[in-house]
């Protein structure tokens, strides 16, 4: 319980300190908060691993009156992912986000916003209350939009504006669903909603909430806000936005469709989600293939990689709940989210270092950088291995699980889409890779400190490690897994 509490409270306290304390003190507080929260996240994972789901009724009031929190395998895994990515980004941005490096404005704003984002993510991953989740994603949205706006240039402001409009429309759709649920059932708690007597507007409520969350997860065709927003933020901010933020709304979707209202998962609805996911994989990859800037390639790649997550709905949802392949599909999708988070954070941080060295992220400017910055180029290559899903990466495990379950379910069409997606991924990542490892070029670039180059390497390495050690996380993710999908192999 104390680890769970620390994960919620420490980032928020750190954010307040970063606003109120003088600049000199902020760095020390920051280091402490990051280290302690990382320890707490590991502690929470250990507690869940050894003792099962950790529950907490806030204020001593249990639902329906109060708000319940719970850390199951899913929640704890994402809390840990967040802590790892945050620690990496904090280490990478330490020298960049200073008044000398990025100007006093960005140096003031980045740190509290990063910590607020952290607090909001943990609040969302652990909450069991539909309205509390709304407040959590609003905090997440405002912090994320502000992180885009830090970029400061005209296109960053336009991207932040578009992001905010989409996100607010999504929030209100979600809220409309929450209102219908409370209106009909008088409760907001996910477990109590699961035990409700079905009412006619339930389907509408789920549809509204889902539509809102799809906008926030940037699933095709609601993805148009994502690439400009993620590409125009400063690199450390892009890493946070791409690796973590869409995962929050995805986790809420999982909770809705698998825990709160699995009875409403009709085949047609689940199929629609899967089709949108497949469309995202193909469209995002094709768009990534024609971009001329590295950050835009990486951003469109996020659109594509998020598509894989939605294959979990036709493969593990609804009536398919108790089939032998569902555990594989469920775990595969979460593996995909985790390994994409680590790899994408590494990629954006590497892109930031390339930009710092070459002064631009146009592919032409990156030629030959691998000879000057071998460590960063290697990190980028490792992250690419995960996204292309070559063995032994975490991405490979994810797509292997999804693919075997789609064959087992007789839905081979998803396997076809995934294969095609893998080929396209290799295609769009080949272009920056070919530029980086070109024989000529690389002269006259700024040097980047080795310590900064190490961070993306560590994150990309973790994404590979996730694949090598996939057995332990596999069991971990089953802890507290919703009943509907429990009877796996």
């Amino acid at each position, binding site marked *: 319980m104390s680890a769970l509490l620390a994960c919620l409270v420490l980032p928020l306290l750190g954010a307040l300190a970063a606003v109120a304390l003088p600049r000199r003190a902020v760095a020390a507080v920051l280091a402490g908060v990051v280290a302690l929260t990382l320890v707490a996240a590991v502690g929470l994972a250990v507690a869940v691993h050894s003792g099962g789901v950790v529950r907490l009724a806030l204020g001593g009031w249990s639902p329906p009156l109060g708000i319940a929190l719970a850390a199951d395998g899913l929640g704890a895994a994402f809390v840990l992912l967040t802590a790892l990515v945050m620690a990496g980004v904090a280490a990478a941005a330490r020298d960049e986000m200073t008044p000398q490096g990025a100007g006093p404005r960005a140096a003031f704003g980045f740190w509290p916003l990063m910590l607020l984002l952290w607090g909001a993510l943990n609040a969302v991953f652990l909450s069991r209350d539909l*309205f509390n989740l709304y407040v959590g994603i609003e905090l997440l949205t*405002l912090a994320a939009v502000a992180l885009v706006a830090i970029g400061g240039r*005209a296109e960053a402001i336009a991207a932040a504006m578009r992001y905010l409009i989409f996100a607010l*429309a999504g929030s209100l759709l979600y*809220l409309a669903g929450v209102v219908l649920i*409370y*209106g009909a059932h008088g409760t907001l708690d996910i477990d109590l909603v699961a035990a409700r007597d079905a009412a006619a507007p339930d389907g509408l409520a789920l549809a509204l909430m889902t539509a809102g969350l799809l906008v926030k997860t940037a699933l095709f065709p609601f993805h148009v806000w994502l690439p400009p927003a993620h590409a125009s933020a400063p690199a450390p901010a892009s890493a946070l936005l791409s690796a973590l933020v869409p995962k929050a709304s995805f986790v809420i979707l999982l909770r809705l469709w698998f825990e709160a209202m699995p009875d409403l998962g009709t085949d047609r609805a689940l199929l629609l989600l899967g089709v949108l996911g497949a469309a995202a994989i193909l469209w995002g990859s094709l768009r990534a293939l024609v971009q001329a800037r590295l950050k835009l390639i990486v951003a469109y790649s996020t659109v594509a990689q998020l598509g894989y997550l939605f294959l979990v709905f036709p493969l593990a949802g609804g009536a398919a709940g108790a089939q032998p392949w569902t555990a594989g599909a469920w775990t595969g999708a979460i593996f995909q989210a985790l390994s994409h988070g680590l790899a994408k954070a590494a990629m954006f941080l590497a892109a930031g270092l390339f930009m710092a060295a070459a002064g631009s992220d146009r592919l032409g400017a990156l030629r030959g950088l691998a000879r000057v910055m071998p460590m960063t180029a290697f990190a980028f290559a490792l992250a690419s291995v995960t996204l292309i899903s070559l063995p032994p990466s975490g991405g490979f495990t994810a797509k292997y699980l999804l693919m075997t379950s789609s064959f087992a379910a007789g839905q081979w069409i998803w396997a076809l889409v995934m294969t095609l997606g893998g080929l396209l991924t290799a295609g769009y990542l080949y272009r920056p890779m070919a530029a980086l490892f070109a024989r000529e070029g690389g002269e006259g670039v700024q040097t980047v400190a080795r310590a900064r180059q190490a961070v993306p390497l560590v994150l990309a390495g973790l994404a590979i490690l996730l694949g090598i050690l996939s057995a332990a996380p596999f069991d971990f993710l089953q802890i507290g897994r919703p009943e509907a999908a429990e009877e796996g192999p």
Partner: protein
Amino acid sequence: MAALSIYALTGAALVGLGFFGLLAARHLLRRVVAFNLIGSGLFLYFGAAATRGAAPDPVPQALIITGIVVALAASALAVALVVAQVRAAGRATLPEEEDAP
């Protein structure tokens, strides 16, 4: 109950109107106003739903107050973004959404 239905349906209509405004308007400030209209209509609907029982339920009222404050926070950021957008690009619309003149 009839009175509550009037308020609930008004709320529903406000949500629809606001959504129309959010999608159809080009001027960003009007889009911010439309966003506020959606929120307010949704709260009205919620408020009517909460008053159906014998005693009014205080929980929705508290949620609505929270929602109003969250909407204000979002509006403040949105309005500041509109001002910044006009300053940076000289117009109060998003780039590729301007219809051809």
